């Protein structure tokens, strides 16, 4: 009675102290197909040993069993001290590849983890596996995992799975990590690369002013602005940006997309213009239904405009 009380008390104590228990960082472990085949082979050899009373086969079988058990411990230990420190997303557009930056640490200074694989999973999508990474004791590892959100708006973050079959591939051990906070996904950038008609006269194509800097080529850029020499040096296509204080601002509005019938396509078109305008360093405004965001530029402005589009619903357009 006393003993059971003590056990219950200890269990409650550990349950309340996540840092003293291990359930917060659970490592799951199951046999792989190879592990099952290995078990079948052990069974066969065991029956062979019993059937023929052959002690040498008994030794072989018992060594196979105990080595696989030690290997199971090793598989578990390989992930046991892995801690996920941070999971950061770069701004994400639906339909485009984004990266999840996952930073992990091997918390045990003397342990090393090998054959680590990373993948992201959601109900309807799975990312490409990043395979065979290793991490030494007390070291950090950053993994960039590609991911594509299929829809705009507030989306559930995909689940991160860190798994390993180290050392012999009998068992798969994995740990799951999901952050409950949803992520805002911007609309898909899709549509015509030409500025809307009302703004087209102001589209910047000339090389006026002084050279300011290089930036990556975008489909909306004129090919005349490509700096071929710099591109060949840097091994990527670069365009020249010029100081052009006289460039006119761009005003984007829902009505400019009237030629597109589909609601989502119209949002995508606006998202494309907003993003390109930001890239070109132009001032821009956005008007959707009753909501209007005044002219401006910069990361904050860009995010506000795209957030508006990301969360836009048909109700917002009803006056």
């Amino acid at each position, binding site marked *: 009675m006393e003993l059971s009380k003590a056990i219950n008390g200890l269990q409650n104590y550990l349950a*309340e*102290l*996540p*840092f003293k228990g291990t359930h*917060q960082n659970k490592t799951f472990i199951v046999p792989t197909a*190879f592990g099952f*085949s*290995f078990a079948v*082979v052990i069974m*066969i*050899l065991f029956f*062979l*040993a*019993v*059937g*023929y*009373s*052959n*002690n*040498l*086969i*008994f*030794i*072989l*079988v*018992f*060594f*196979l*069993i*105990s*080595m696989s*058990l*030690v*290997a199971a411990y*090793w598989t578990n230990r390989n992930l046991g*001290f892995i*801690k996920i*420190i*941070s999971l950061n997303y770069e701004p994400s557009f639906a339909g485009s590849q984004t990266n999840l930056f996952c930073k992990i*640490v091997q*918390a*045990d*200074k*003397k342990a090393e983890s*090998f*054959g680590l694989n990373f993948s992201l999973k959601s109900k309807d999508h799975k990312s490409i596996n990043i395979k*065979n990474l290793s991490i030494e004791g*007390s*070291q*950090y590892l950053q993994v960039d995992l590609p991911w594509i959100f299929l829809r705009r708006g507030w989306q559930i973050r995909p689940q991160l799975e860190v798994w390993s079959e*180290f*050392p*012999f*591939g009998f068992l798969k051990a994995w740990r799951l990590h999901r*952050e*409950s*906070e949803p992520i805002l996904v911007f609309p898909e950038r899709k549509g015509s690369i030409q500025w809307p008609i009302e703004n087209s006269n102001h589209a910047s194509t000339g090389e006026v002013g002084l050279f300011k800097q290089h930036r990556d080529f975008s489909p909306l850029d004129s090919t005349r602005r490509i700096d071929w020499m710099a591109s060949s040096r840097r091994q990527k296509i670069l365009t020249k940006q010029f100081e052009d204080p006289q460039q006119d601002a761009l005003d984007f509005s829902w009505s400019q997309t009237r030629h597109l019938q589909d609601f989502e396509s119209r949002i995508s078109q606006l998202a494309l213009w907003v993003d390109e305008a930001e890239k070109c360093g132009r001032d821009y405004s956005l008007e959707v239904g009753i909501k209007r965001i005044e002219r401006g530029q910069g990361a904050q402005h860009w995010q506000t405009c795209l957030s508006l589009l990301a969360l836009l619903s048909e109700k917002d357009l009803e006056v």
Partner: protein
Amino acid sequence: MKSFFADRLFAVSLIAAMAMVASEVSLWVVLFSTGCIILRWFSEGRKRVYVSKTHTGILSVGLLAFVLLQFKTLVGQDPAYTFLLGLTGLKILDFNSERDKKFLVLLGFVLLAVKSLFSVDIYWLVPTLLVFVFLWWSLFPTAFPYKQKTLGKIILLSAPLAIVLFITFPRFVLPWALNQGQLRGQIGFSEGLQPGTVAELAAQEGLVLRAQFREEKKSSELYWRGAILNVAEGLNWLPGRRETLPLQRVDKKDWDFFITLEPHQQRYAFVPDGTVSIVTEGQSFLRQRGEIFRFSRPVMLAQNYYGWIEKDFVENEKETVETLSKVYSQVPELGPKTQELVNEINALELPLQEKLAKVQDFFVTQGFVYTLQPGKYEGAKALEEFLFGRRRGFCEHFAGSYGVIVRALGVPSRVVVGYQGGTYNEFGNFWSVSQKFAHAWVEIFLDGRWQSVDPTRWVAPLRFEIGAEDFFALSLEDQMSFAKDLSWRPQRGVGVEWLNQVSVFLENINYKWTSFLIEFDLGSQREILRELSLAKFFNSLAFIITIFTVAILMAIFVIVRRLRALSILSLLQEFEWHLKKRNITRKPGEAPVTFLNRVKEQESHLSDFCSRFQVAFEEEIYQESKKLTLKELRDLRKIMHSLF
């Protein structure tokens, strides 16, 4: 195409496992598997795929058909092992992925087990161990840098459990187990004695048995009884009727001899002269008239048994006059010269002992030659041809002919077939008896009991003095010239003597190993348990001390690990747990530093600690060069505990 030979250790260890089994299966499947490996080598060299999965599929069906053709069945050991080896060859041929590699590793383990069925000799242990280790080795990811160290650790850690399992797992013997299939390891011994049978046996290599005696023995006095032959047909002798007798009970606790018999697929249990009774685990014996013992089932695996000897042992079940006259005195039809010899001796009207001495004189003086190649003696005149013609023979010729002559003189006789002598191993104090020691001798019924007579001793006493192995290692000229010279010894170089010593030493280790493997059974396990309970008091005290020590060591281990596991992240978790009681929780996704800032604002008395924690956290997580020491972490935790 994934290369099979790229991982050399894997390829070599698998081929080695195949080679070990190859020595036990049919030649055609060995050639087939070798062909597969060569074709694979050729294919990888040319970087061309000559055999597709479809081809190997067809080949495996063909392989199955061949196995069926040879064995008429797929059930049983031989067809299974033949198919297994062929299948491994085919799998190498269409090797193309990591999955194939894993499958081959599993096949490798099975091949090792199969080899253990055929031989438990220690000589196979080294290659088996190497293959075992390298198969595990090849399961590591290719790029893994610490294979050696990790595999070493895994083997060391798994050894205690494997040993405990080996010792404690009960060795129940299934009744049907030993009768399955066909095993190799025949000793070729068979009932019946035809001219040349024993010579054929003696010309073969191969171990028959190993034996230990409680008392010292000489090679020349060791006669291993296998079978009794009663029916004389000239040089040809047959077993005749076998009479089963009740098993003798022996009151002596300690055995007089201990034998490890190699599997021979028959029921013979070879015993030294004078054996009263034998016992073994898992098998029962039949005792037959003439101190002959038989296992109840054929000996398919190496078998240990103990026995007791009594000097001048006389079977309790006396021979009746009727048996002596009907069974042991029947004389076959003799040729004219043999009859004349018998008549001549009878005509002298001497006492029986002197008549027998005359027969001995005949064998000693008539220029008989002891040889392994006496040529064939066939037909009704075989006895005449041997005694008065060629006079070249092996032990069975001397025994067979002597037995017939003494019967003709009125003395009941029988021929005993078995082994004579053995090679003594001074390191292990045991005798090894190989096929070379195959022998036949005669027993005559005189003075109310059976007495051994070995006519071969009169012709070639040197064979008994130096042993059959050394004798037959001599040239034919030396055998003939020195057969009767008891003082002659073959000359050996120092190197040969040294090699001999090494081989005797290795043989001793092998004997210890194989007898351990064979002997370790339910009885041995019971004995271990019995021994443990004998020293109850001592053991219980020792047990408590051991448990106590282990508990302390484990506690130290756990504490050390807990201390080692102390990290800035675990401190953060603990801090969060304390704050949770004050309804301050970290929001999902909220960065620790941001969270600590929020805590600072909400709980002013924690502000200093939060600032210190922030600095520590940033240093630990973001500055790779700066790492907190265990002391710093413990100090931080101490401060935290003082605050709550």
